[in-house]
């Protein structure tokens, strides 16, 4: 790893894009962007532009890959040929395969896969533009897409990298910081359970720095968690406001509305119980 440190006096140290050491890049998340998918999300994190689509739970093809006692989560991380410079081949690389795997491992703890024997849940992520930290941005989009698909989840999963650049610990590395920095540590986190579900690191850091770096990344994840939640709620808030105004104009009492759950067939006891006594 090349260390081209630009020697600068400490006081005027600032990041290449002017951010503070613990500041995230601008994040924008939108849910439900793909008409065909069961769930989907689009994320812009810095200049990353990524779309995640979820299909399932659905019948697994080929059948031999399915499990008789639980569902299977399949993840696929894939980069558009024009997402990076220079253009890359559309065929999946070894890096893509590894990222697909760690993504699956970090999302799986949030799901109730035991409810879907013999089925598969597919999470497909397409990188339209890459700008450093694509795996974390992909996980953030994938978690929102899973929730948008209505797949039961214990919690959302939020991801963010931290690392070391010019001797300092920084949050959410951009492309340049990622390539020129001393180390990079992508982290995914389930805030409700205080569990780190993805942790990778490469570079050189002291043990103290490593510990501090995890803490910094987890703090970043917590901020992203709130943005993910907002994105999921936003879709409904807009329609609700519109509809609410119509209702007010017509001076409707909030009438005893037909309740969805009451209209259901009286067979709820057959439903998998959502109780988790732990």
């Amino acid at each position, binding site marked *: 790893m090349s260390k081209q440190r630009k020697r600068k006096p400490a006081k005027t140290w600032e990041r290449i894009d002017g951010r503070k050491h613990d500041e995230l890049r601008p994040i924008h998340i939108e849910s439900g962007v*793909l008409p*065909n*998918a069961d769930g989907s999300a689009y994320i812009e994190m810095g200049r990353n532009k990524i779309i995640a*689509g979820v299909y399932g739970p659905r019948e697994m093809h080929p059948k031999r890959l399915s499990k008789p006692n639980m569902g299977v989560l399949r993840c696929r991380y894939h980069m558009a040929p024009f997402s990076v*410079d220079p253009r890359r081949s559309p065929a999946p690389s070894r890096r893509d395969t590894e990222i697909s795997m760690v993504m699956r491992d970090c999302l799986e703890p949030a799901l109730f896969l035991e409810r879907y024997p013999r089925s598969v849940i597919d999470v497909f992520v*397409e990188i339209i533009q890459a700008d450093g930290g694509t795996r974390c941005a992909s996980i953030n989009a994938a978690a929102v897409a899973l929730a948008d698909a209505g797949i039961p989840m214990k919690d959302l999963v939020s991801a963010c990298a931290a690392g070391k650049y010019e001797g300092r610990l920084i949050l959410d590395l951009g492309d340049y910081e990622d390539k020129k920095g001393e180390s990079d540590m992508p982290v995914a986190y389930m805030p409700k359970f205080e569990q780190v579900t993805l942790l990778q690191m490469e570079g050189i850091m002291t043990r103290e720095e490593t510990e501090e770096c995890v803490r910094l990344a987890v703090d970043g994840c917590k901020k992203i968690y709130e943005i993910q939640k907002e994105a999921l709620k936003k879709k409904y808030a807009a329609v609700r406001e519109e509809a609410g105004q119509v209702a007010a104009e017509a001076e409707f009492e909030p009438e005893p509305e037909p309740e969805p759950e009451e209209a259901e067939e009286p067979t709820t006891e057959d439903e998998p119980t959502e109780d988790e006594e732990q």
Partner: protein
Amino acid sequence: MSNGIVSRLKRKKIEEVVKTGKRMDGRDLLQYRDLQIKTRFLEKPEGSAEVKLGKSHVVVGVKSGIGTPFEDSPDEGVMMVNAEYTPIAHPTWEPGPPPDEAVELARVVDRGLRAAKVLSMEDLGLVSGEKVQMVYVDLYIINFDGNLIDACSAGALAALNTAELPEFKVTKGAVSSTDKTKKLKLRAHPIAVTLVKIGSEFIVDATADEEEVMDGRITITLDENNNVNAIQKSGPVGFTVDEIKKCINIASEKAVEIRAKVMASV
């Protein structure tokens, strides 16, 4: 629907409705869905366009690079068109090598651009027989609801129109990069129009459902002088000469509409 099994009922209903001169979504037979084109929305590629045609959604990226020329054209650059059927786009699309349809899509779009001589390939040569500029046009399908050829052809033209290629300096056979870029010059503006035959009727801009039940399909690519650049007929039924004539007429009208939208977006 899944596994490529066509619902018999769907076929029957679509045929019935088309026979009355209307479509399932209320359109007339020769009416396109809403076409939205956004250009320059990506920073990494040299040119880019996002096309939404109804619920069909494609992203086109144009990238350049340096490669070796073909032996029979040592001084000409190389253009390559590639289509990617991403698995996010449709429940039946799987990850893996491109299906036949993706290869056909890329080739039909490629043929239209190439035949119309859109790029001045000789301007892209660097070192004769050794190094030329490559232009990659990647068609990336984000959501599939039919008529990808027209959406991608419009998107490719828009993306090429906005592309700025890096300039190179050649000194004694050595290629070095400069900081400068140069706008890619286009010599023609071909547009593909695809007609689909259902029963005895022809429609434009078919949805995925309509393509599922179609009998045949014909794509006609025309340039701004109304010359035909490329044709692709596919599907299991034949067309009469009169039908082909009719299709060319319709396509030449529709191409003008679409070209105007493409040019307005760049």
